[in-house]
């Protein structure tokens, strides 16, 4: 099972539809400071159901929608879709490929999609239950989180162990 395609449109610094085809092995995303690398990571966390503004480095919910540049107007919708190849039947469905999508309108509405059909967040969460995939599972790690994993205080560590048992 692996992430095979990510499509971003109107999310953060992606005003034009952008497609990334991922391979299953080890890949790296490189580029200058501020060019949008961590925004790609935020897009993956977001489509997996991340609800916290802080985890998406935003101050308010609509900070995820493209806010415009000196040459482009701000957009009113952010949309991300992620295709997952289900080759090891980890996901509880007979589809060999699963596509999840999330859309957010500046007016405040959020829509979730599973293989093109509108669903609720609960349905996305139950699809990924016990698979190690999800916005807060230990599959997305940034340098700042290293302190959290190691610190007693927030007991993030317990969460990692509970997810695994």
């Amino acid at each position, binding site marked *: 099972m692996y992430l095979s395609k990510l499509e971003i449109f109107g999310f953060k610094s992606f005003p*034009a539809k952008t497609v990334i085809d991922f391979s299953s092995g080890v890949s790296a995303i490189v580029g200058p400071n501020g060019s949008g690398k961590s925004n790609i990571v935020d897009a993956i966390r977001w489509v997996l159901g991340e609800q916290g503004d802080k985890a998406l480095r935003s101050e308010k919910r609509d900070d995820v929608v493209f806010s415009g540049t000196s040459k482009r107007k701000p957009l009113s919708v952010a949309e991300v879709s992620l295709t997952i190849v289900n080759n090891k039947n980890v996901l509880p469905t007979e589809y060999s490929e699963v596509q999840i999508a999330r859309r957010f309108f500046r007016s405040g509405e959020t829509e979730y999609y599973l293989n093109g059909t509108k669903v609720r967040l609960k349905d996305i969460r139950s699809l990924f239950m016990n698979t190690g995939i999800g916005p807060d599972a230990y599959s997305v790690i940034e340098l700042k989180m290293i302190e959290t994993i190691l610190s007693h205080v927030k007991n993030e560590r*317990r969460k990692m162990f509970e997810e695994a048992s």
Partner: protein
Amino acid sequence: ARERFLHTFEEIRQNFIRIFKELFQEGDEANLKLVYDEDEDGKISDDPLEAKIEITAKPRGKRPTSIELLSGGEKTLTAIALLFAIYLVKPSPFCILDEVDAPLDVANLGRFNRMIRKFSEKTQFILITHNERTMESVDTLYGVTMQEPGVTTIVETRFK
């Protein structure tokens, strides 16, 4: 639930000790312990589901210390060892690491990239990095840029 948790904890602990030795050098050791809290009355609870998980690390020749006293690079490597110890018990289909290799010196960077390669049979890795050595060790490289100010585009993909 208790039995399962204790069983998983023991498996992760064994993995952590082994992986820590691989990521650090000969003679470096580490361990995981369940620490039971005292409640207000001083009674020690024996419920593993409530206990804290303590990491102790003993880099080569040093006395066992709490991980707070380790250096920046040692802490990063310890957290990675723990993450992989858990992945051995329950592999995650993918793992995204955003500039986690920044604090590592040249030798540890090599060990880190070799470990990633080893785990990549079960787990897909997507690494964000500024380290040229990490860029050389991956299968596919995606370049991003903001040629038009404020707009991210994917420039080129290089396959090995």
